[in-house]
């Protein structure tokens, strides 16, 4: 990696100040994406602002039909949280399926969604549940947050503070692993909410997206069979050595049905 300055602020305000003062500084959460990027010399930040000392960014709270998870909460903590398992088991299961134990013990929800990897799992939960992303400046609905490949609504220096998920009637996430990386080749998050069904797809496109045809069908009848005639289009989907666009489109259908069955 290239040389950089290292800061470890203790408050959101201090972290924000450091990031505002230096446009080339980068926040670091679990470092599971950032550090490999630095090691491969793909990024050259002037400074790394380590968020691990900011207590305000941690913590899980459940109540009032909502689950709120602090940005610095590790995947392993979400997976193991009794409160999350009870209120929103689909989210705990999703977190428990990210990467491997080492990754889950370092990686955070804030880092994952700020990064918005097209094959990441958390973005599917955010979009599938209609979560709200709270930053140090504002609140952003998930529908407006994920903009494109590795692109979000965050402004330079803006920090994710927490993510709030409304508790649905039912939800589940099904992930088809890319065989090598075990990120999602296709991941589908389905939720049955008071206002209808939501279906979010990750891994298949350039960024997480909602599958509106499936939502319409499931809003009418919440059952796997409701998806029988509904086909995801392959147009614009990712294609690589692990899966063509057609294969991914097919898997969206299979994973969506399985998620509905599991929910």
């Amino acid at each position, binding site marked *: 990696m*290239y040389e950089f300055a290292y800061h470890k602020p203790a408050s959101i305000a201090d972290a924000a100040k450091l990031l505002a003062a230096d446009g080339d500084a980068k926040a670091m959460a679990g470092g599971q994406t950032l550090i490999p990027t630095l090691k*491969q*010399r793909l990024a050259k930040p002037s400074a790394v602002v380590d968020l691990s000392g900011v207590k305000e960014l941690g913590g899980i709270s459940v109540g009032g039909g909502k689950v709120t998870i602090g940005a610095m909460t590790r995947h392993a903590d979400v997976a193991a949280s009794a409160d999350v398992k009870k209120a929103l088991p689909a989210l705990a299961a999703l977190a428990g399926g990210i990467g491997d134990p080492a990754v889950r013990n370092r990686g955070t929800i804030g880092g994952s969604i700020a990064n918005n990897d097209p094959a990441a799992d958390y973005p599917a939960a955010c979009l599938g549940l209609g979560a709200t992303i709270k930053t140090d400046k504002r609140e952003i609905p998930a529908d407006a947050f994920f903009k494109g490949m590795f692109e979000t609504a965050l402004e330079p220096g803006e920090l994710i503070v927490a993510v709030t998920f409304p508790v649905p009637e039912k939800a589940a996430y099904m992930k*088809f692993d890319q*065989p*090598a*990386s075990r990120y999602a080749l296709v991941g589908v998050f389905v939720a049955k909410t008071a206002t209808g069904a939501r279906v979010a797809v990750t891994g298949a496109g350039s960024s997480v997206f909602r599958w509106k045809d499936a939502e319409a069908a499931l809003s009418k009848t919440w059952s796997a069979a409701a998806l029988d005639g509904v086909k995801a289009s392959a147009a614009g989907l990712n294609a690589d*050595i692990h899966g063509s666009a057609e294969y991914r489109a*097919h898997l969206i259908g*299979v994973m969506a049905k399985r998620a509905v069955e599991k929910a």
Partner: protein
Amino acid sequence: MGAEGIGAAVRRKEDFRFLTGRGNYTDDINRPGQTHAFILRSQVAHAEIAKVDTAKAAMAPGVVAIFTGTDFAADGKGGLPCGWLVKNKDGSNMQEPPHPVLAQGKVRHVGDPIAVVIAETREQAKDAAELIEVDLKELPAVATMAEAVKPGAPKIHEGGNVCYDWHLGDKDACEAAFKGAHKVAKIDLVNNRLVPNAMEPRAAIGDFDRATGEYTLYTTSQNPHVIRLLMGAFVLQIPESRLRVVAPDVGGGFGSKIYHYAEEAIVTWASAKVGRPIKWTCERSESFMSDAHGRDHVSHAEMAMDKDGRFLALRVKTDANMGAYLSTFAPAIPTYLYATLLAGVYTTPVVYAEVRALFTNTLPVDAYRGAGRPEATFLLERLVDVCAAEMGMDRLEIRKRNFIPANAFPYQTPVALQYDSGDYQATLATALKNSDWAGFEARRAAAKKRGKLRGIGISTYIEACGIAPSAVVGSLGARAGLYECANIRVHPTGSVTVFTGCHSHGQGHETTYAQLVADRLGIPLEQIEVSHGDTNKIPFGMGTYGSRSLAVGGTAIVKALDKIVDKAKKIAAHLLEAAPADIELKDGKFVVAGTDKAKAFGEISLAAYVPHNYPIDTVEPGLEETAFYDPKNFTFPGGCHICEVEIDPDTGVTKVVKFTAVDDVGRVINPMIVEGQVHGGLAQGIGQALLETCVYDDKGQLRSGSYMDYTMPRADDLPSFDVATQITLCTHNPLGVKGVGEVGAIGSPPAVINAVVDALKEWGVRHIDMPATPQKIWGIINSGRQAAAE
């Protein structure tokens, strides 16, 4: 045998240091004043080097020196040698183009070394490397073998893209047999290219001592003496007496650490230039573009059969990828370690194989666990299933009908090898029983109820290892002998150090070899140490590969033990006032036959080193013996692997749900180690069959260049294996051992693919290339379903 001798499942002596993180790997070694090397590599597959300007980089902080191919050549140093000469059909020599240590004028694959930066730290070396100005004039790349032989294809070397066009067997007899065939089964198949991925990446430290003029190379090698010979004699012109090569603990090799690599020569040479030790440690992504790859064949094969399904003749045409340059043993793999195995376990009287070796703008390809035999086995065992389908015969029946019978050994195949022992009906019978083959259809039906397609596949394989008789391989083009050396040093108090020319990088030699000594001398294991991997300690050695360590290296130990026992008997006879012929070695004691007069082993060794009361006129003091052993033949492990898979038709995912292996590895010294070797081999074989593949794009860029895209098998990809041995003894070495290091990787891939094909039989599938990925299988099912719907 005793609790620690031959046949005892003792725990591995070396595991304490490995499991507690106390191994001593090359990267753990640091020499005083050490500098660090970073190698600037080509990012393109094929280009002319117009300019390499290091001026700016040389001024960067911490830089000690930067060298390019021009510097290396100006010093009069050579290229990397190839250890095997294969001849063309017409008797002429193969094309053997230069293999520069640092690129000369051209780069020929992504990863080809262009320059080395030596700096105080590794990061400084990397920083400086970014300042080197490299002007490459890109040339069209030859990414595949199909491209390499197209008329007008870009030439990678002056002599074109064909390395050799070789054949083996009787062509005319083959044609004649095909004319008389009742039926012919045909198959086209690919043996997928693999990246070796040892757990420890390669590393090397060059350390030149100005005071003595001696060079030391610490390196991740399976065969330090071979490296000393190749590098000293052919590349750097350093006499053996002034070159020490140390291969300390090595974390896996699988063949990829046999070869002499450019980085070893670079750090050794440059350490004298800069007068300081230089360490180079490969990064994982760098290893994908600098370790020799494995396999990579494209083949067409045909089997002629009579009306009873008996094999009359086999003809095979194979193209084998050499990559951009010839790695140390590359030419031998698709010829003498491949075509010679095409008879398999069958009585096929005629075999004719043609092999073309081709250059492409990809990394060199060389031996990888199994080396040639997995390629032969996959081809043959897939083809035999197609034969059964063609004849409408049962897969087991066609095998049984064609097996070499147990009473036919020694058996001369039509492709040069003479098998010494085996019993294929017996290993098959055991495997059928252990796998409950008979109950399979019920399991298939049960799976169907769960919506899964279940299939079963079998492979009855043989391989040739324990390489190899020097005179035989010499006549086939090897430029080295393949004997092994052992030195046994009995210390005054009776403890023993075994110095072996083989090298352990995961195989457990420190335990297995110690068991041979414990068994023979009757002393406890804890008094026996096995030393390997240092040319200053070990008299000589050819190293570890080709499952040779026990059959060849172990036999050298037995021969040295013979000499030790012989001498000890003379000493004992003197002490016991008896004739040497009357002395017996029993439970660690030298006994006068028929009496209770005895001397313990420790008393003999003490007398040898404190020769007060000693037969000094006829016996030298000391107790240390060396033996070199040159094997009489290859050894021929074989066996039967049975695989059951379940396919999820909605996703195309294949799960190996049951795997049964019955292997004939000859005498088993340590059953636990044997089982472990088979497990590892099966993981690699299943990995090749279902998961792993190295993909280049049409520009010669590596698309599977990291673990993000190259699928290594993980524990949860594998079932719990059912592993057993059923042995026949090797007839030409004293232990009766054959070898176990590679059998798992050789026997398993066709068993897996045969199972996948069986599971998909309702779609009319006859073959599926490896790896049978979910995408590929879903494609087959999907088009099958669409066709059915139309």
